[in-house]
């Protein structure tokens, strides 16, 4: 059976990339500002910047929330089945995540080299924070690759979770939307505490993740797969509204 | 509910075509508008236009030139005139007489009126 995967992917990918590029530029500006301050003005004080990964992740989260509905609606108008639209959305998001991760890694690497001149400044990312002991050593190419891998996983998960919220609120009526919106912050804070109270020791799990970047990658993959499944289940029978 | 005589559109179209042939608007051996042109001009389904045109094709007034369209047959004008003469009695005389009877006019009164008509009307 012929599918409309190619046009759907092209459309979604370009959209995502454009928005992601905007985020990227903002981060570049911030990083450059940091660079300038760190190298020229604050050579004696301690500064650290590890924001790239988290910033992009939040960015992808937001962009995904915005685009999932708008892309699904357009695909529907143009005769693309939900399944194809959803799959291409996931792949588009994955591709953009990878591109952003690599680009971000490049940015981080350059920043690290430049900042080397200032012994009090630290530039890094999630990878460096978790997996590298000597904070002042320039990561190797291999470590950069792993960092990019981790970031890809992070961004991808963030996007899928963003989609989850978007699709969830689409399916819920007003009352349930409010209930869930209030419940979520409680759940995020409360569930781990509850687990600990109940005797579940999360430490081994956290240590395991911290033991190797591949564990991190595996965890992200699992979360991503679960999120994707839930997203599909939410999407399958949704009455796609046109609230425009 | 309206009181009009709702003659089917294809029939009205056919009559219009016949008028055009009689008046010379559609000369013999010339092309009449295509089905699409009719459907666009009168905002009607092409099948309706086709039905109207086929009425004239069936009576030999139009014929089809493959790939070029519908053309007025030679002698169509004469054919129509004689058709109309044949129908004149039914289309006009019968109705005229029926109305006259309704109004209480007799045959001689009607004849007088008809004679007057020949003088008054150009």
């Amino acid at each position, binding site marked *: *059976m*012929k*599918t*409309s*995967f190619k*046009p*759907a992917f*092209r*459309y979604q990918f370009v959209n995502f990339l454009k928005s992601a590029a905007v985020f990227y530029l903002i981060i570049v500006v911030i990083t450059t500002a940091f660079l300038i301050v760190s190298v020229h003005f604050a050579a004696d004080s301690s500064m650290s910047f590890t924001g790239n990964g988290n910033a992009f992740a939040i960015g992808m989260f937001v962009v995904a929330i915005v685009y999932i509905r*708008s892309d699904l*609606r*357009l695909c*529907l*108008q*143009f*005769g*693309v*089945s*939900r*399944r*194809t639209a959803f799959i291409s959305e996931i792949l588009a998001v994955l591709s953009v995540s990878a591109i952003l991760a690599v680009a971000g890694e490049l940015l981080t690497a350059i920043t690290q080299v430049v900042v080397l001149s200032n012994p009090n400044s630290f530039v890094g990312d999630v990878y460096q924070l978790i997996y590298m002991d000597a904070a002042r050593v320039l990561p190797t190419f291999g470590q950069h690759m792993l960092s990019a891998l981790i970031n890809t996983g992070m961004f991808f998960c963030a996007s899928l979770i963003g989609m989850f919220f978007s699709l969830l609120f689409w399916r819920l009526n007003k009352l349930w939307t409010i209930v869930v919106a209030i419940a979520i912050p409680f759940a995020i804070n409360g569930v781990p505490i509850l687990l600990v109270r109940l005797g579940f020791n999360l430490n081994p799990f956290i240590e395991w993740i911290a033991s190797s970047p591949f564990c991190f990658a595996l965890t992200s993959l699992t979360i991503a797969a679960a999120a994707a499944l839930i997203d599909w289940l939410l999407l399958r*029978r949704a*009455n*796609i509204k*046109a609230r*425009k | *509910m*309206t*009181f*009009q*005589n*709702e*003659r*089917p*559109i294809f029939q009205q179209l056919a009559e219009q075509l016949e008028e055009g042939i009689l008046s010379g608007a559609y000369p013999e051996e010339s092309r009449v508008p*295509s*089905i*699409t042109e009719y*459907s*666009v*001009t*009168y*905002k*009607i*389904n*092409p*099948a*309706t236009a086709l039905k109207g045109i086929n009425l004239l094709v069936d009576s030999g007034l139009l014929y089809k030139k493959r790939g070029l369209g519908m053309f007025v047959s030679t002698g169509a004008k004469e054919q129509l005139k004689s058709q109309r003469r044949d129908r004149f009695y039914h289309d006009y005389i019968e109705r005229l007489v029926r109305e006259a009877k309704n109004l209480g006019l007799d045959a001689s009164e009607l004849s007088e009126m008809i004679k007057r008509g020949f003088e008054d009307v150009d």
Partner: protein
Amino acid sequence: MSIEIKNITKDFGDARALDDVTLTFGDDKIYGLLGNNGAGKSTLLGILTDRLYPTKGTVTVDGENVANNDEALGKIFLVAEQNLFPEDMAVRKAFDAAQLFYSAFDRVYAETLSEKFGLNTKKKIKTLSTGYASIFRLILGLSVNTPYLLLDEPVLGLDAQHRDMFYRLLMEKYGDNPCTIVISTHLISEAADLIEHAVIIRDGRILKDCQSEELTADVYSVSGPTGLVDAYLEGKHVLTANVLGGLKTACVQGRAGALPEGLEFSGVNLQDYFISLMEEEDRK
């Protein structure tokens, strides 16, 4: 080459919007899906295009089920009131996207039509007035050249001139590139001459599904003095009747046989037939 709708039922909670609907749309004909507001027309079209899920029944396009089927869904284009385009998308960007998804999309034609209607393609879709938003979607529908074109209340918000232009353009497109067209509307008189096949729907059920010629051939109007008319109507299937003074007019289902003296007979157009049919249904 057709869309086959088989035993489609759609419930919204307790409300049944469509009840065991079976229809065929195909053979490059123009269909009218005629019914009052709330009859279920939009629901049906939504189900054909995967916007809504049927509670029961199936829809196939050229033999293939539409569910999760890009090829089948790509053959149908629905022009409806809902705007499914992104907030800030400009008209010409929408045309770009259409080009991406539809191989037969005629960009030049779309631009020409935009000019004809006075649609500024640089404008964002959300800033268009109701009329121009309709026009934009109509232009898309006329330009994508899919085998099936569904129009849900196409002339909503269009002024008389634009309505006229649209109907003519639709006929022109149909003449040049025939396809199966379904016009869903409650404006019966406007659609009457355009359609070849009429589907009359009421409260989610199909009342009539046949060539519009057959419908109007099978009904007539008789009027005259009340006494004479009543005598004539004996044993006939009367849809509606009106009395004005001593004059009675009735709409009768069937073919007029022997015509007694003193009674006037005439045909009934599609809109009047539709109204009479609805009145009869109301009485049931």
